[in-house]
């Protein structure tokens, strides 16, 4: 479904991604892990069109999408839950969701909003409240719900557990598993590497802008050698 082929992305003098390749098949939950600064966020930003790659191609559903506007990619079926959520704090919860359905037809949008109310009862209680008043966990749920409003074929999540209390982290992991059982295709960047690999179909380990390992999720999670680089050792 998503095929990233030898993508290189630069920020000024810094080459953040060196010819990275990865793919996501339909219905998979794929985890992308790696230490801070490895280029995970850069990769997601490149996929959704916020950054332009200097080399390589990104294909989605067989179509080359690098250089396309993020808005066009949403229409094509890609949605990102950005790092640090970036919900619209001045808009109400409902308005956040409605805006996220901007590409959908009015009846679809309505129907999806009802789905979100069902899927996230905690949000439904705060429907008309400004999103700025939500707690961290609720805000993260809103960020996910907002992306789901785009009814994406592929959902990308960037560090959904960042800054959340442990109980909320559990909620987010539950949500990931639920999305997976619903047959959604998901690519998630997460810092809690072993935990997320434990529930993923497949995983990639990124380090200083290159893929250093890939494989089935649980199998990667058990490979101690990969995580020595995290905790030092050697």
């Amino acid at each position, binding site marked *: 479904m998503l095929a990233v082929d030898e993508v290189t992305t630069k920020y000024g003098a810094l080459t953040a991604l060196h010819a990275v390749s990865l793919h996501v098949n339909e219905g998979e939950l794929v985890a992308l892990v790696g230490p801070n600064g490895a280029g995970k966020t850069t990769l997601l930003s490149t996929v*959704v069109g*916020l950054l332009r790659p200097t080399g390589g191609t990104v294909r989605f559903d067989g179509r080359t999408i690098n250089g396309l*506007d*993020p*808005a*066009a990619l*949403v*229409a094509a079926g890609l*949605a*990102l839950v*950005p790092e640090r959520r*970036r*919900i*619209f*704090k*001045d*808009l109400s919860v409902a*308005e956040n969701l*409605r*805006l*996220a359905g*901007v*590409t959908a037809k009015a009846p679809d949008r309505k129907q999806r909003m009802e789905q979100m109310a069902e899927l996230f009862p905690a949000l439904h209680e705060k429907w008309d409240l400004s999103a700025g008043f939500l707690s961290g966990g609720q805000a993260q749920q809103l960020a996910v719900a*907002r992306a789901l*409003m*785009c009814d994406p074929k592929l959902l990308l999540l960037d560090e959904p557990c960042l800054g959340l209390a442990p109980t909320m982290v559990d909620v987010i992991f539950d949500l990931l598993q639920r999305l997976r059982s619903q047959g959604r295709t998901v690519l998630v960047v997460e810092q809690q590497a072993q935990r997320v690999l434990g529930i993923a179909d497949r995983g990639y380990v990124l380090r200083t802008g290159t893929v250093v390992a890939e494989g089935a999720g649980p199998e990667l999670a058990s490979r101690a050698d990969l995580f020595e680089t995290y905790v030092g050792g050697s």
Partner: protein
Amino acid sequence: MNTFVQNLIDGLGNGSTYALLAVGVSMLFGVMHLVNFAHGELLTVSAYVIYGLRSKDVSWWITVPMAILGAVALSVAIEFTAFRRVRTASAFTLLLTSFALEILSHAVWRIGVSSKPRRYATPEIAFKTFDLGPYRVEVWDVISIVVAVLCFVGTAIMLRKTLFGLSIRAASEDFDAARLMGVKANRVISGAFAFAGLLAGIAGALYLLRRGQADPRMGAEPLLKAVIAAIIGGLGSLKGAVVGGLALGVAEVYFRSFLPNDLQGLTDAFVFVLIAALFVVRPQGLFNVQTAERV
């Protein structure tokens, strides 16, 4: 008491023009951090449209919509040809670009028409008055206030209820996040320019039907007032722009009636000093839209 109410009506009448322009200025600042000094040129284009059509005896009923349309078209054209190219540039470049467009517009009218004013006859209604109890009220002031209020209500509804309005609010807060939700950057920005142009066109119609002439540099002064109004209200805040515009209109009238004759001409100077003082006291409060940089 008499003059107090009289002044209030006069002031609100003037202020509604400022406020309509200020809302546009503030909205554009919200979506792209631009203080658009070329916004006043929309009045100028409306004025020349009125002059052109009226000199051919076209009915006011057609002339006014055409004048408003002219402002919308110019606003969108300015965005498309100039601001789109400097969208991500510094505030410095954006500001200078808007000034360059302003002078360009002045020069174009001078070359294309004349540097001398072109007059047109104002409709009768523009200066009619009626007596309301002890007050003599100008019909046009009342119309201006009513139209402006309708516009503000319309703007508020647009921002709350329509997807376009939500897009503008979202883009003002976090442009990239809005794009990630499928909001098209070009569409929301040119939409904001079109909407700001519409309000400017309406402000223009209200102002021009009484003014009776078109000249190349006429847009500069009302725009300056509008920018001041937007700054008073806090750039990016549309409510603030309305309040700022009306307050400025009223304040001007009162300054005129209170200040001794010798100091009449200093009305604007007083306003400016006030604004500068405001900046010194709370510079960040006035530009609260700018978010802190992540270190």
